């Protein structure tokens, strides 16, 4: 990035000075609104994909209406000196909204149900965004961007692999990154992420596989812990594909 940065532009790292609190679930908006008499958290004032400065109680932060879980959710980017304050206010107010805590395992399960990718698991240098099926994040009409020439070349060459979501027919183990995917006896790809989707009640996995097998409905198999199990290519967003919930 630095190589392309003009001198007039400054880049300041804020990784360790701020922390995110994620508030997720159908009651998240009501809970946050209850702490924010002078801020408007309504769908009209703060629609999905907004970024606004908000005050919760007497703590200030940047709030984003963004969801990695697929539920109505907010990310609060809070300076560390007000992290405890914000936490205390939300957890106290949360009692009457049935607030519970959750962690990375739950997040991992929920994002697999939404078709969301994880950096360095599913998003890797070796696959371009077209092979990663992230076409909607690419605009080849733009006059220029870093990597455009090479991307056009790769587009002309066609995908070497394609990213797919899979349903794994196995009730005792999740797929693991690196597990092999077969069509008959032919090795056609490998898994990048795997885990159980609790809301859709399916054993899910992501993989890069040969393009000719990437159509939804294709039946393949996975070598899981030394045994072959059936897998099927499925739609990437298994949970709320219309994104009705995240819009609230």
């Amino acid at each position, binding site marked *: *990035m630095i190589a392309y940065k003009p001198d007039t532009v400054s880049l300041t790292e804020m990784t360790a000075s701020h922390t995110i609190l994620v*508030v*997720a679930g159908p009651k998240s908006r009501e809970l946050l609104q209850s702490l924010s008499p002078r801020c408007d958290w309504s769908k009209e004032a703060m629609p999905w994909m907004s*970024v606004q400065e908000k005050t919760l109680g007497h703590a200030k932060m940047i709030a984003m209406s963004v969801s990695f879980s697929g*539920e109505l959710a907010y990310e609060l980017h809070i300076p560390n000196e007000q992290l*405890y304050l914000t936490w205390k206010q939300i957890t106290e107010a949360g009692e009457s909204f049935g607030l519970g805590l959750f*962690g990375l395992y739950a997040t991992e399960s929920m994002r697999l149900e939404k078709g969301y990718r994880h950096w360095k698991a599913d998003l890797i240098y070796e696959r371009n965004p077209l092979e990663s099926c992230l076409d909607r994040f*690419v605009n080849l009409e733009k006059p220029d*961007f*870093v990597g455009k020439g090479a991307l056009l070349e790769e587009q002309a060459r066609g995908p070497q692999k394609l990213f797919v979501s899979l349903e794994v027919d196995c009730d005792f183990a999740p797929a693991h990154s690196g597990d092999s995917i077969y069509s008959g006896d032919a090795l056609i790809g490998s898994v990048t992420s795997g885990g159980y989707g609790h809301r859709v009640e399916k054993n899910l996995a992501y993989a890069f596989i040969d393009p000719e097998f990437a159509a939804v409905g294709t039946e393949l198999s996975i070598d899981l812990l030394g045994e072959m199990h059936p897998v099927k290519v499925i739609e990437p967003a298994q949970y709320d594909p219309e994104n009705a919930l995240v819009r609230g």
Partner: protein
Amino acid sequence: MENITRKPNGEFIVHTAKGDITCEMVVNATGYRVNEVGRMLGVEHPVTSMEHMYFLTDTIAELEAMDKRVPIIRDPGDDFYSRQEKNGLLVGVYEQGCKTFGMHGIDPHFTQALCPSDLDRCLDNMERIFERMPCLTETGIHTVVNGPITYTIDGMPLIGPVPGVPNAFCAIGLRAGIGEGGGHGKILAELMVHGESEWDAWCLDPRRFTQYANTEHTCLKAIEDYQNEFHYHQPHEHRPAARLARTTPLYPVLDAKDAAWGVVNGWERALFFKPDADFVDEHGYRFTPTKNIVAQEIANIQQNVGLMEVSGFNRYEIKGEGATAFLDRMVCGNLPKKSARWACVICLMKKAMCWQKPPLLSWVRSITGMARPPQQNGMTVTG
């Protein structure tokens, strides 16, 4: 090589007893002397060394009589390996009572040299090794080899640019350099010549560690890694050495709520919340009882509302004249058209490999009504 200095034009001068050599680029590949040479470049690498021993036996009559070689053994229970060497065995040990090397400096005369043998450290393993391979009890040991091996925080070497020193590269922290050196050499050459590698080599990138990765931290992880050398790393296993390197003010609060902790680049992160303090998150390749606890956390998020802390996500403020044009050029998609919006964007490599696409590389453009300077006319990128 005695020192490295820099010319005003940025070129390096490598000073040796036989004269100076001017170089456009340098590579630190000096094995266990990594930090002596690193210091010449003004950096301290997260690499330390551990002593490691193997021994060679006298000729074993049964091996001599065989018309084939015996297989290589790697024993994850008794922490040893063995392979045939001529008509004897080479047996190496990863002992629990292991020893660091060179923490207080290395004798300049220690070249092509070995440490004094110290098989007593391995007695505990030896008993078990003898049980597995009784022939060893009847064979003499003719040589013990004890040498330093370099270790890093995560067991992987550092191949690529030296953070903060333009045109300096490194290939250091190699634990199995004989086996892996060829691949590392290819990646390093690509990085030096083209600036990027054909493969996703982030797991080897020297820039994957940050300030927390000091020598003491590295050493604690190196000892742990040595002790676990042959033990399987289970999915979701976060090992206990050198923890709490990076925490937020909520660590003690979440800990009191029985958070099960994992670690991401030094940062402590809650994996899930234990039903009681004594609950143990079993590690394995199959589903474990933790699955049901996760199901409950998710059910509550789906019905009511859940709260999670996310520490240590990369976050940059990009601002100044030309910030929007700069960011627009870096990403292959569209920046948000309206203010006070975020968008997911992807940065590509020059060769159009997915370079960096965090789950959410969001950004903010001139948020209206923002009072505080950091965000004014700026944008925050998180991921």
